[in-house]
């Protein structure tokens, strides 16, 4: 899995390209952990190119969400693909981490 980040006006956008599984999960945690340490705790994770997510991937999202909130920011997700949406709905994780249609919408109200 490949991660890239770009700083926007009020948040950092992270794009995750590939399969978010047991191998990629700790990599995502580290990538986002570094962003938070570098002073960007407001993060939108763009999942348009994440074709698959398993429970380890879900675990990484939860870990990143907690880390961002602890640093006074937040993690939001956008552009989820059908399989990722299914996992979020099945597990009711969409109640905790609601997916936004686009990256721009994620922080548009605050």
């Amino acid at each position, binding site marked *: 899995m490949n991660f890239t980040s770009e700083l926007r006006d009020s948040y950092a956008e992270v794009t995750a390209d590939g399969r978010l599984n047991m191998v990629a999960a700790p990599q995502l945690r580290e990538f986002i952990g570094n962003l938070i340490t570098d002073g960007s705790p407001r993060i939108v994770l763009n999942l348009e190119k994440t074709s*698959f997510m398993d429970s*380890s991937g*879900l*675990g990484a999202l939860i870990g990143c969400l907690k880390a961002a909130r602890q640093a006074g920011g937040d993690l939001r997700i956008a552009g989820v693909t059908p399989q990722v949406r299914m996992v979020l*709905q099945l*597990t009711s994780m969409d109640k*905790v981490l609601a997916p936004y249609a686009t990256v721009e919408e994620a922080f548009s109200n605050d």
Partner: protein
Amino acid sequence: MTVPPPARLRDLRIAPDEPARLKSLAETGLLDSPAEEGFDRITRLAQKLFGVSAASVALIGEDRQFLKSVVGDLEVNAPREVSFCTHTILTPHTLVVEDAQQDERFSNNPLVLGQPNIRFYAGQPLQGPGGHNIGTLCIIDQEPRTFTEEQKQVLHDLAAIAQREINVRTDLKNGAKIQQAHLPGSAPSLPGYDISAYCRPAGELSGDFYDWHVISGRFRFTLADVMGKGTGPAILTATVRAGLRATAALDPAAALTAVSEELLTNLARSESFVTAFHAELDPATGTVRYSDAGHGLAHHVTGDGAITRLPTSNAPLGIMAGMQWHTRGITLNHGDSLIIPSDGVLELLHEDLDDLAAALKQLTTSTDIPADLNRMAIGSGSPSDDVTVLILRRT
């Protein structure tokens, strides 16, 4: 009573710990097990490092030698009486035979006189549980050689790596045995109901578990999945199970809420979470009161074949403080089933919920759940997740 060894083995020197040694070998489960990369890597390395024709991890059974790993032209099974390694395991030390033709123990050995024409042999004993010599890491060649102290040290170090493989493996097998013992035994006798469950770990240990017990006439049951697989999640399954047992007097949702709060710190530290379906059946009425924490895969199959996926109440356990779950109810009429799979079953069906529903419907009438799940696993390629199913059917 001691059983005398077969006639052909009577002249063979056998250490006094032989019965314990054989038991130790059996505990490793290595005899007749298929080749594994962990061992093959070591024999390949040994063969290259020493520049010999063959290297193997040999295990000495009661009357034969079995090669768990082999590079070079050696038979996987050989009679014990011709084995060089059966001599090696008599002591804790490296056995070096620089020229077998000049060694009276081996000069008439058929493996020296004929194929594979062994001249040089060096073997280092390997131990099973309890410290018994169960086999060796050994190298052979068709030319006589001298073997220096330095080379002996290298063989010793390689054998230590093979030893570690054996230890880790034995440890996991013990863990699996204990985890298996945590699953409930046979289903309680519940007139008017059939209860069955099956759990197949992806490796030795499982992050899934199921549990059931009867308390005050109510049948309480659970299927839960700790994120991940292997040792870490397996430890957490025991904790979650204990927590849910300890809260058996509470309503299912209240039990989940209590366990989530209790495990919050543990789960956060281990960066894990738990999905769970936790329920209670009143056998007299068929009423099932259940609460689903992010599991989302329980299905209700009615007698006429209609299938409904039961909604979750909230996200998985252990995500954050202050979360609440709620209890819902369904009624199992005669001929209805409730079937709860883990997400490993969804993976077998390529993450397709419609295919899952169809497969679950079939499983509710299955007479051999493990066989049917195995068939699904074969169809899906190589399943990587734990697979667990619990079925409650009202007759």
